[in-house]
């Protein structure tokens, strides 16, 4: 498959291979959490709270005596689900909005650009916190908040792509064949604009994982006992001296995942040779 070629190429570089391996591992954790986790994520064992990492509990236990490794494995599920769904919504909305704005231009474009530029200059965490204040706490609202927080980025990028692509000769050539806007947008512009937006979406997934964790740190997002890396760290801060592993392991899980996403994204960008197009926004 031609579509998989860049991925293959990306995996061939040492960075790409390493990061891809980590990502496969994380995704496997999320998919097969019940099989991989040695314990249930919500079974408390209060007398065994704050146990150091060891043979029975590889990463120790948390303040409720729950197995930290199992919770990190399940936490991958929460973090990835939130991040990937949020970014998917965001990418889909950004593609639509950006394509409309970029293709048709005019007052609609100016309005979209103004709003997008302004929200883009505000930190995602503030946008998400304000949105959650409006729509209330919980996993779904966190997803919505994150997706709106990143909407500006994808709208900008898509718009820039479309603006560049619509000057390509083949677009004019297709118009000259008598093609309508619909044909041009969906058969030519969007398919060609897709790659950088998807890669940017992939990179943003890393940021979204951090954002989800930060919201978890503020007590928003996944509700207990559902494990989320951010919420785990939030409650771990209270144990920082007696059970530092509670905060260190989820933090490492995030760092590792996000670094892997970034490195793999970089490798992919190189393989696809789209650095310029990503920067065009």
């Amino acid at each position: 498959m031609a579509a998989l070629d860049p991925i293959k190429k990306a995996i061939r570089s040492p960075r790409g291979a390493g990061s891809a391996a980590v990502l496969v591992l994380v995704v496997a954790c999320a998919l097969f959490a019940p099989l991989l986790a040695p314990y249930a994520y919500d079974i408390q064992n209060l007398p065994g709270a704050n146990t150091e990492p060891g043979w029975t509990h590889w990463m120790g236990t948390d303040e409720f005596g729950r197995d930290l490794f199992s919770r990190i494995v399940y936490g991958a599920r929460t973090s990835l689900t939130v991040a990937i769904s949020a970014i998917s919504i965001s990418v889909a909305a950004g593609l639509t909005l950006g394509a409309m704005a970029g293709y048709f231009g005019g007052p609609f474009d100016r309005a979209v650009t103004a709003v997008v530029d302004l929200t883009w200059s505000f930190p995602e965490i503030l946008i998400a916190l304000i949105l959650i204040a409006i729509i209330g706490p919980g996993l779904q609202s966190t997803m919505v908040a994150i997706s709106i927080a990143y909407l500006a980025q994808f709208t900008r990028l898509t718009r820039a792509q479309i603006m560049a692509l619509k000057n390509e000769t083949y677009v004019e050539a297709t118009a000259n064949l008598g093609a309508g806007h619909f044909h041009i947008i969906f058969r030519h512009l969007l398919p060609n604009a897709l790659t950088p937006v998807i890669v940017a979406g992939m990179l943003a997934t890393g940021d979204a994982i951090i954002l989800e964790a930060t919201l978890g740190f503020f007590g928003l997002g996944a509700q207990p006992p559902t494990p989320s890396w951010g919420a785990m760290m939030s409650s771990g801060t209270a144990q920082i001296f007696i059970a530092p592993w509670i905060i260190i392991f989820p933090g490492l899980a995030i760092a590792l995942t996000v670094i892997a996403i970034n490195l793999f994204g970089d490798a992919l960008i190189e393989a696809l040779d789209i650095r310029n197009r990503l920067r065009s926004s």
Partner: protein
Amino acid sequence: MDSAVSAPEHDLVTITGLTREFSSGGGLMTPRRTMRAVNDVSLDVPRGKVTGVVGESGCGKSTLARLVLRLLDATAGTVAFDGIDLATLSPGEMRKLRRRMQMVFQDPYSAIDPRYTIRRALLEPFQVQGVAQTAAEANATVDELISMVGLSPRMLASFPHQLSGGQKQRVGIARALALRPSFLVLDEPTASLDVSIQAQIIDLLEALKQELGLTYLFISHDLSLVRYFCDRVVVMYLGRAMEILPGATVQPRHHYAHALLDSNFEPDPTRRKVITMLAGEIPSPFATIPGCAFAARCPAASDLCRRERPALTDLGGGHMIACHHPKD
């Protein structure tokens, strides 16, 4: 071919007073500036002939090409195709008419969607026009099209980046011919190709014209190429037609046309020349020039030229010139 049987003396395309303005700025930051990319151009494109438009960058030749195909709407003036005023057509009618008028673009490298195979690119005209085809018909069509431009059907499965520039331009021509048009606008089809390939493409276009009875509007900056390929030549400068030469061998009399001619070095070391340096460079298209657009650079310019714009007048035999002091 329906157009081949039409009377040759009848003009296929008639352009009258065609003008197109572009404006830029006009926000709070910049004053609104208007340029006339094409300024009051009138021209007939005779059926079955090659009409050439020659000029340097910014002369409006590419805009003219797009106006003729109504890829852009004219600010003023009309384009009549086979007697039909394009401006009066509804989008649906215009779409139908596009089957009869097509374009070959300057840059073959970006003229095909990089994600499309050649086959898909060649079938797209039918898809866009809603021409239903069975799989067998489609295969036959693309085979015929690709062979017509001298490429092997093996290339149908290729992506554009796997083809050389010349091959891509051939695909571009095949795509333009897919709907069996009678009229082709060729917008500098060889400008980004090597000379050895340029000659191939010109040769191909010539053959296709004969074979299919096509009418061409050929746009180029290369006067020698235009004079070789075209039956009539229009010299444009800053959006205006400066001179219309009825035949390839007719000596131009406009000073600008001469400058163009002068700039062309012959491939013959025995015919080296000392060119007359033109003063200055092509003015900004936004500048408003009261008189002759070429006056500022013209060696023969007089006050009259700077004051009053010369009208395009017939010197006889269809040789038209817009100059107060034509060269002898």
